[in-house]
């Protein structure tokens, strides 16, 4: 098992290098950030000067060497637009993202699990119909619209919650709620269909024959087998949360990573884009490994194969 993990980490590291090179090239191929910094009065010499100061006059390989040597020292470079270290900007935005993303993730996953299992266990009942409705709504309604409607209803009309900002627990309700609303349906459907598959299995029949209670059958025998599919998705959702809450962050004015990335890409702020993509890539790759390890915990067969 540990040998397997070491191999997976090495693979992930290679993938990270590949992604870094790719992002480095792509972001540069997509436009020149100096075009956003210059003013209506800038002269061609000043533009050239600016490029030189930012190191953008050098060839790609030369820029890459600068970038890599910086990385080796643990530096991602300074933001072209904000003129401060990209790492510092991430350090400011990341806690906000985590504060929003972690509760949203865990609430959504817990709800998805509970409701998905309930819908599967009580198939074709009123609960199942309710769960299906929530799933359809969640996937059909545009996120932007839902967030704004929630804001208009709960904040403007009912005056129950603040519109935006942060500080108190109340400030979390709307943004976290909106994110849960986005994250829940897909996961819930996945849990439901996975559970339905498992509940048809012979070993579930045998568990019933043994005289076990439905609770034990569902939460012990069925769920653990039904988790394998949803686990991968949960891992990917978790990794994507780093930059995935753009809409929520914009509407509820939450200065997180999603907004930072969108703004950095729009401005071709290379160091910031590179730093965030590397972080996201590392997160995705890391989550993959964690999911694999989690698999091994859930499914002993995988555990034995890999050792």
């Amino acid at each position, binding site marked *: 098992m540990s040998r397997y993990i070491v191999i997976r980490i090495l693979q992930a590291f290679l993938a990270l290098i590949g992604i870094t090179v790719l992002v480095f090239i792509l972001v540069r191929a997509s436009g020149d950030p100096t075009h956003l910094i210059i003013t209506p009065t800038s002269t061609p010499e000043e533009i050239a000067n600016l490029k030189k100061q930012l190191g953008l006059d050098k060839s790609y390989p030369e820029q890459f060497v600068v970038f890599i040597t910086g990385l080796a020292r643990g530096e991602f470079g300074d933001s072209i637009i904000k003129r401060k270290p990209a790492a510092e900007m991430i350090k400011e935005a990341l806690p906000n993202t985590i504060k929003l993303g972690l509760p949203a993730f865990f609430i959504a996953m817990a709800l998805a699990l509970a409701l998905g299992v309930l819908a599967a266990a009580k198939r*074709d009942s009123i609960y199942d119909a309710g769960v299906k409705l929530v799933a359809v709504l969640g996937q059909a309604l545009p996120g932007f619209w839902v967030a704004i409607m929630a804001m208009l209803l709960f904040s403007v009309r009912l005056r129950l919650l603040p519109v935006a900002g942060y500080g108190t627990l109340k400030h979390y309700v709307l943004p976290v709620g909106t994110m849960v609303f986005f994250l829940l349906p897909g996961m819930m459907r996945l849990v439901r269909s996975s559970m339905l598959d498992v509940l048809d*299995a*012979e*070993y579930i*029949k*045998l*568990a*019933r*024959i*043994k*005289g*076990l*209670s439905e609770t*034990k059958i569902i939460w012990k*025998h069925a769920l*653990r*087998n039904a988790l394998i599919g949803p686990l991968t998705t949960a891992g990917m959702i978790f990794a994507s949360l780093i930059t995935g809450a753009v809409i929520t962050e914009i509407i509820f004015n939450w200065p997180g990573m999603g907004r930072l990335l969108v703004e950095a890409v729009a401005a071709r702020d290379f160091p910031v884009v590179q730093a965030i993509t590397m972080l996201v890539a590392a997160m995705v790759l890391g989550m993959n490994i964690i999911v694999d390890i989690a698999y091994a915990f*859930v*499914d*002993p*067969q995988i555990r*034995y194969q890999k050792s």
Partner: protein
Amino acid sequence: MIKKQTKKVLEVEGLRTSFFTRKGEVKAVDGISFFVREGETLGLVGESGCGKTVTGLSLLRLLPEPAGRILGGKIYLDGINLLALSKKEMRAVRGKMISMILQDPMTSLNPVYTVGEQIAEPVRQHQGLRGENAREAVIAALRLLHIPSPELRLRDYPFQLSGGMRQRVVGAIAMSCNPRLLIADEPTTALDATIQAQYLALFKEVQKKTNVAIIFITHDFGVVARMCHRVAVMYAGKIVETAPTEVIFKQPRHPYTKALINSVPRLDRKVERLYSIEGQPPSLMNLPPGCRFCPRCPEAKEICREQEPAEKQVGPEHSVFCWQVS
């Protein structure tokens, strides 16, 4: 091989089970009666789809919900009508009083729990044993089914065991609480021939030790000959003939039984080709008014088409449902 007349463990009277589908009612089991004695093995024989497995699941009240429903009849286990029990009381019967072994050992064990855990569950549930006591009971069950080094095996996961071993584990689960009745639903069809023979021998031994009553569901008369004391032949949701095993082979009375026995390949008889029954069993959604076998029956007369045959006693513990038997 007639068993000495011991106490009847199970008595079923007029059991009717249907499935309600979108297309209509499927009468899977349509008024059957039979019994099993202590230490006795009753073979429930018939083609696939005749209602054997549904009968087994009905006894456990484990029909797939909400489609499957028991519509009528009585199931007495040691004199208690199981159909009158609450859901909770019924759960206490399952695994403790009645056990069942499913067909495919590859799929009937939960892949993510150890063998020991899966055997321990009914022990904990029904006997209230914990810790070391539960472990002892698990090891005893594994020993009963002749599983070598049970102390080690109980830590194994199903995928680490061979098919034959797994089916023994399923047997150990079934026997772990020392049940009164064991329903074995074609437990050997998924095993290869030598393993099959071992498994059957093992079962006989287990029965001798525990005096458990067994309902052996099969379509294989070879297995019946080796395992069963008595046989009930099912056709299209009905029992058409019941008899002690020796009698059924020597003097089958129902035309369907005869056809089935003739279709069994035998070492002592050389035949040009195996006998096969013409036609298909009737749809359980749209049954003919008279005898259900009549469309395929070589001996059918007018009355067979019009009226359902009544039970006729033709010998000791030998009854048959056929107009042409006198």
